[in-house]
């Protein structure tokens, strides 16, 4: 081992004695060690990336990575794909924009960017690929914006260069929406800046006025300061404060009270009182409190908006990773990559093993097994032969097939399901945030109190009656109330996303806090979503032999057995032959080993029949292993239940949720899974089509079950996800379910769902505490007003004090996973 690798080994790997890859610093498998070589690589992809980086004189990347990396993950590896589809016209139309001077630009999501060294490397792209004008990376969003000269370079070459560096590029869709969001962000910032500057200046003037109250001030200056405050205050209302008035008017028009309404009432009252008092030269002016209020409320809203945006961005990044390309077979029989959008009915596409089928069509040649769980929820692969129909979004598992395209895009089964999803999302009642529900009552109570105050004082002292009533409207202006929810939600969403739970909107948390019905999809959610050995009966020593004959097969059964055997050392098999759809046989250490269906094995001892019956009863597929013609073991294959499923479901039930399984898989399989999870048979719904899933959700909603949560991962769940009170997509979910869901769990398993529900409950607890705190301050202010003791100074002290309390409570609270 060389000095260089030894150094890297000690720096980056737990043990210095294992040689590590010069690019990714992972241990090098013994079979790939090259004793004479100065550098070792764990795979061909790493060697490629290393070669590219060195060839371009960019070795400094490694030094930078050593000094800057935060240990958030090793460098990504190249996939070696060709990216020809990036040059398509359909692709250019959707993703590429033209600029002055003939330059083109596009935004690409990059996999694997995580530190400053990545920024450095990616932004050296113009040096790597001649013709690239600029590459700017946005680390937070993993988004690179490249601009290039189309006369000198094509986008596919740029994509290949990025891929060779180890950052697989994906087209970033919705560039227009992103641009709009960016502009919205900027407007938000401008408003906050103006509101902040005005608030600061008003406070300075107020300070002079308040000290004038104590130590005396000449009337001339006092009036001058008040005039300037008036100007600034009205500017604050007219420019940044306009959003509240607009919101209030909208809520009046829609007859749905929103928090904007009481805020606007308070602001308007303060504006009117201040203006009148400045004009008549007497009485309190509230411009300091008013401008600070506008500033604080805008800041709170901006924080919430930003936090939710970053969660939504992360989800968007995930679904941009779904491939949208196909291998189009040309007249000469050779295939090239094109974007899926450019496919037409009648085209022939090639689909290799483990690739997603890009369109609906008929298999022309070849045979494979299709994982259609994304569409049907069925976990067992389906064998297809020429003449069979296949659908877009399903995955070819084992073989290479040619498919004649019949329908593309919105015409496919997936496309039609997606149309249903949009429809379901439209029918869903919008979630009304807690504070907005309070807002209606708040307005009512506050105006009543103001009227009472007026009536109490009007006989006593008519001049002060109006003043006290208006002062009450001003000091009860719900500043802390307006901050209570945004701050609590910002803190919770931020913490949740650090724990791999991406929440798209704050109202989701409010909804999840109250237990109701939780509908769990089976395949991929409760189970692992792929074939695995659930039980091994019989001789355990036959397992390495079976794994040996199955090692080189890409059949799902073979892979399940190999995975189950783990790295148990096995002699390699010879003379391996496959009988399609039945089994495989080969010679290991001179013994004949056969693995296959019950019919494939001639020997049938009595214990085997029992084992087969047991497996069938549990809805598992039996696979028999025979050595030298004698059946010795039986592997029961199925979709293994996730380890944490049982415990998680129990905690959910303990929290008051009614947990039900809702799956497209065979009812028997669903019941078997439900049994092993301790669920009642009535709560296991199997054989549900996407439409039925939607109906089940609607039935639950209609019978007043309260919160109906749908948890799923497939396209077949998407409509149900969109219709449910809260839709949760789980790790590895399809693009459609990601866009339909309100929350996304990055880590597999059910434990994050429990955490999401409990975190939501704690978040709502924080919101409630915030509301109580802000109401307490308001109660004090109301009492003072009714007693006629309020002054602008008191208002100026009370308001920020209540807001600070709320800020403190929000950030000190534990919501997700304790303190971050």
């Amino acid at each position: 081992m060389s000095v260089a690798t030894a150094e890297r080994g000690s720096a980056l790997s737990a043990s210095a004695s294992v040689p590590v890859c010069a690019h990714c610093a992972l241990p090098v498998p013994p079979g790939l060690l090259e004793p004479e070589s100065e550098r070792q690589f764990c795979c061909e992809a790493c060697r490629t990336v290393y070669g590219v980086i060195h060839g371009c004189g960019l070795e400094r990347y490694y030094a930078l990575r050593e000094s800057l990396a935060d240990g958030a993950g090793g460098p990504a590896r190249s996939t070696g794909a060709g990216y020809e589809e990036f040059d398509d016209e359909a692709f250019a139309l959707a993703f590429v924009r033209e600029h002055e001077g003939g330059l083109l630009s596009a935004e690409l999501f990059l996999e694997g960017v995580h530190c400053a060294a990545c920024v450095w490397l990616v932004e050296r792209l113009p040096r790597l690929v001649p013709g690239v004008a600029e590459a700017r990376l946005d680390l937070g969003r993993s988004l690179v914006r490249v601009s290039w000269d189309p006369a000198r370079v094509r986008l596919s070459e740029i994509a290949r260069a990025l891929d060779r560096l180890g950052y697989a590029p994906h087209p970033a869709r919705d560039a227009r929406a992103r641009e709009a969001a960016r502009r919205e962000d900027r407007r938000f910032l401008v408003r906050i800046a103006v509101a902040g500057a005005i608030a600061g200046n008003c406070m300075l003037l107020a300070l002079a006025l308040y000290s004038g109250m104590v130590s005396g001030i000449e009337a001339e200056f006092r009036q001058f300061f008040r005039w300037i405050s008036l100007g600034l205050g009205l500017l604050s209302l007219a420019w940044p404060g306009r959003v509240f008035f607009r919101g209030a008017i909208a809520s009046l028009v829609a007859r749905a009270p929103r928090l904007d309404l009481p805020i606007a009432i308070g602001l308007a009252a303060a504006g009117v009182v201040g203006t009148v008092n400045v004009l008549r030269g007497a009485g309190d002016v509230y411009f300091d409190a008013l401008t600070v209020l506008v500033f604080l409320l805008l800041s709170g809203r901006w924080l919430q908006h930003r936090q939710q945006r970053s969660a939504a961005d992360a989800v968007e990044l995930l679904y941009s990773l779904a491939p949208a390309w196909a291998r189009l077979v040309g007249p000469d029989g050779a295939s090239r990559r094109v974007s899926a959008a450019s496919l037409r009915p009648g085209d022939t596409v090639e689909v290799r093993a483990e690739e997603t089928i890009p369109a609906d069509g008929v298999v022309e040649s070849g045979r494979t097994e299709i994982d259609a769980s994304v569409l049907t929820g069925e976990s067992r692969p389906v064998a297809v032969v020429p003449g069979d129909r296949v659908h877009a979004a399903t995955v070819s598992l084992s073989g290479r097939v040619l498919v004649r395209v019949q329908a593309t895009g919105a015409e496919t089964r997936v496309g039609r399901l997606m149309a249903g999803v949009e429809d379901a999302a439209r029918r869903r009642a919008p979630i009304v945030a807690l504070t907005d529900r309070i807002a209606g009552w708040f307005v009512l109570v506050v105006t009543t109190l103001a009227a009472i105050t007026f009536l109490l004082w009007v006989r006593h002292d008519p001049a002060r009656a109006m003043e006290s009533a208006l002062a009450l409207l001003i000091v009860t202006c719900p500043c802390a109330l307006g901050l209570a929810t945004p701050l609590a939600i910002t803190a919770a969403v931020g913490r949740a996303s650090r724990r791999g739970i991406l929440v798209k909107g704050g109202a989701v948390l409010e909804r999840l806090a109250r237990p109701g019905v939780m509908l769990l999809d089976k395949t991929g959610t409760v189970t692992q979503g792929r074939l695995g050995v659930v039980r091994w009966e019989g001789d355990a020593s036959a397992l390495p032999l079976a794994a040996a004959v199955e090692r080189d097969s890409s059949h799902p059964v073979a892979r399940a057995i190999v995975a189950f055997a783990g790295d148990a050392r096995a002699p390699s098999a010879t003379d391996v032959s496959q009988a399609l759809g039945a089994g495989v046989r080969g010679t290991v250490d001179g013994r004949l080993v056969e693995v296959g269906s019950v019919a494939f094995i001639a020997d049938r001892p009595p214990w085997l029949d029992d084992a087969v019956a047991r497996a069938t009863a549990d809805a598992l597929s039996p696979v028999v292993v025979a050595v030298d013609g004698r059946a010795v073991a039986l592997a029961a294959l199925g979709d293994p239940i996730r380890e944490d499923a049982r415990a998680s479901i129990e905690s959910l039930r303990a929290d008051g949720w009614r947990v039900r399984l809702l799956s497209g898989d065979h009812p028997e399989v669903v019941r078997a899974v439900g049994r092993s999870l301790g669920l009642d048979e009535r709560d296991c719904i199997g054989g549900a089509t996407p439409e039925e899933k939607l109906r089940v959700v609607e039935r639950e909603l209609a019978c007043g079950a309260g919160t109906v949560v749908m948890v799923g991962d497939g396209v077949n769940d998407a409509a149900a996800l969109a219709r449910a009170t809260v839709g949760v997509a789980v790790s590895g979910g399809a693009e459609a379910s990601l866009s339909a869901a309100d929350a996304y769990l990055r880590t597999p398993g059910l434990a994050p769902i429990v955490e999401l529900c409990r975190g939501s409950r704690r978040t709502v607890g924080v919101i409630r505490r915030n509301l109580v705190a802000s109401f307490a301050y308001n109660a004090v202010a109301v009492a003072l007003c009714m007693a006629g003791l309020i002054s602008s100074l008191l208002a100026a002290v009370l308001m920020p004090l209540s807001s600070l309390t709320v800020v403190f409570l929000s950030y000190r609270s534990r919501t997700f996973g304790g303190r971050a």
Partner: protein
Amino acid sequence: MSVIYLVLPLAIVLASLGVWAFIRAARQGQFDDLETPAARMLPDDDPPERAARS
């Protein structure tokens, strides 16, 4: 006439200059990405001999 009549409007004009500069920067997108620039300045510039080679 007191100097305050001159100084106070002047202070507000100065403040609005600051706000104007901020608004300009925000509208140009200088606050769109607050993470990458911090990472971008970490590596030193390329050493001269390497820059000459490429």
